């Protein structure tokens, strides 16, 4: 392949994208940074307060609570969706009419607008008009996601599993499909057990896609907003007020610009850190598999 030629004029081709994204990203971010170091008592009068908002934030109970809830949520999500996704991907057919049926069925939840996902589950979980709620009630189980924090959490988690596990499944399935038959044949000839086949053939080959799936799910679950907002609005109380919801409440609802801005920056920085980890690990995994050669 011809090496890329150096051409500074290429900047002109990138300029439109750069400008739009800069407009969408840099200007708002500068605004946020601006707010994070200032305070206002209204009437557009701002005074410099330096790192005060950040200090408040680090010590704020509210922030700790939201951050911990968020971590716990993302952790639970990963613990459920990743193994479940792998198990389903392993069980999916590789040939025949089952393949398109599975792929279509699994892809459907991924393409539903997120507020509709929320609405679907909001309805589904209600005791009076929802299949799930009604069934649970008729079984004698007390279930009310608007009043019981545990029920609210469970509902949101199941909803997220319903919504996003397919992403893990599809990614793992793609990884599995790339394994040539010869590997399975060789394993049979070697007398390998089912578990050994999974551990030594399937899991290593799925490693790369699994990493993508894990990081995507972690990041997206860390940013989750719409679905829980539609179902519970952050309640009951603030038991399901995850970080994005809390942030929007602060910024757009309460107009607490300073604290909201500081939180935004910390939030964004955490995600950027994860993104950097993602990029680095991915490049290393990519290098390892290409150095290993085929």
């Amino acid at each position, binding site marked *: *392949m*011809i090496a*890329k*030629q*150096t*051409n500074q004029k*290429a*900047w002109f*081709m*990138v300029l*439109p*994208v750069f400008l*739009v*994204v800069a407009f*969408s*990203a840099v*200007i*708002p971010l500068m605004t*946020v940074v601006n707010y994070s170091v200032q305070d206002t008592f209204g009437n557009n009068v701002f005074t410099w307060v330096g790192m005060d908002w950040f200090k408040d934030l680090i010590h704020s109970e509210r922030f700790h609570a939201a951050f911990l809830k968020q971590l716990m949520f993302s952790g639970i999500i990963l613990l459920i969706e990743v193994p479940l996704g792998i198990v*389903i991907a392993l069980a999916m057919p590789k040939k025949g009419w*089952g*393949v*398109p049926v*599975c792929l*279509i*069925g*699994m892809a*459907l*939840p991924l*393409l*539903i*607008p*997120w507020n509709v996902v929320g*609405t*679907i589950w*909001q*309805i*589904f979980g209600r005791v009076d*008009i929802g*299949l*799930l709620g009604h069934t649970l009630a008729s079984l004698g189980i007390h279930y009310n996601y608007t009043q019981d924090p545990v029920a609210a959490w469970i509902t949101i988690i199941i909803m997220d599993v*319903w919504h996003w596990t397919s992403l893990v*499944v599809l990614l793992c*399935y*793609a990884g599995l499909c*790339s394994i040539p038959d010869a590997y399975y044949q060789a394993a049979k000839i070697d007398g390998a057990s089912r578990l050994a086949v999974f551990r030594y053939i399937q899991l290593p080959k799925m490693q790369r896609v699994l990493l993508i799936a894990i990081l995507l799910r972690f*990041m997206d679950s860390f*940013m989750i*907003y719409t679905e829980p907002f539609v179902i519970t609005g952050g309640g009951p109380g603030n038991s399901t007020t995850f*970080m994005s*919801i809390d*942030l*929007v409440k602060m*910024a757009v609802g309460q107009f607490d*610009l300073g604290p*909201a801005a500081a939180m935004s920056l910390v*939030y*964004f920085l955490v*995600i950027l850190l994860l993104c950097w980890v993602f*990029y680095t690990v991915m490049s290393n995994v990519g290098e390892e598999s290409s150095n290993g050669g085929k």
Partner: protein
Amino acid sequence: MRLKWLIPAIYIFFLLLPIYWLVNMSLKTNEEILSVFTLWPRDLTFANYKVIFTDASWYSGYINSMIYVSINVVISVTFALPAAYAFSRYSFVGDKHLFFWLLTNRMAPPAVFALPFFQLYSSIGLFDTHIAVAIAHCLFNLPLAVWILEGFMSGIPKEIDETAFVDGYSWPRFFVKIFIPNIASGIGVTAFFCFMFSWVELLLARTLTAVNAKPISAIMTRTVSASGLDWGVLAAAGVLTILPGALVIYFVRNHIAKGFALGRV
């Protein structure tokens, strides 16, 4: 394990159950929904759908969504094409950093941008317009478009470019007549993803609109907070938003299956 097929079967059943329930509800009258609990409509009715198609406050939502999503797709693909070409073919000062910075925007939490966007677009008088949402969605769609297109473009050998230039093509003519047909499927994939991510996004779309450009997602959520809910209509509205996704999957189902069979990851 002969019963292996049970696992995906149960999972798909689990996936379809809530959707079936939504469709079920959309075909019932409000009275039936609130009075009895039935697994399929006792009095099948399309009245809810009729409301949406006739009531401007509902169908305008769909129209608004379609408008800004389409604008976004056009902007994203059009701007991303030359940029992806630059990343794929040339090296220039800061190119790797620029690419990485673009990717980080895809990872930006919309919540962080809700308020700043609100202020920004208000200050330039674009609040409550379709173009505002379209540009706002570019925050994550443009990087995605560049990322996907760059991947496809890198698959086209540079020799094709060289040959065209030697043959006397000007760059615009080469790009339109030779290059684009080669990456047609890549453009299709990009447009698909941009469409989907813009269609499903709620937070920014709601923050930046009030009345004129209110998307269907916002109308639905607004209705939620009111009491005396019209569940049937809400369900019908939901079903209608699932349709574009379902249609798209149906049309590309063979490509999806083939893609996996080829083992490309």
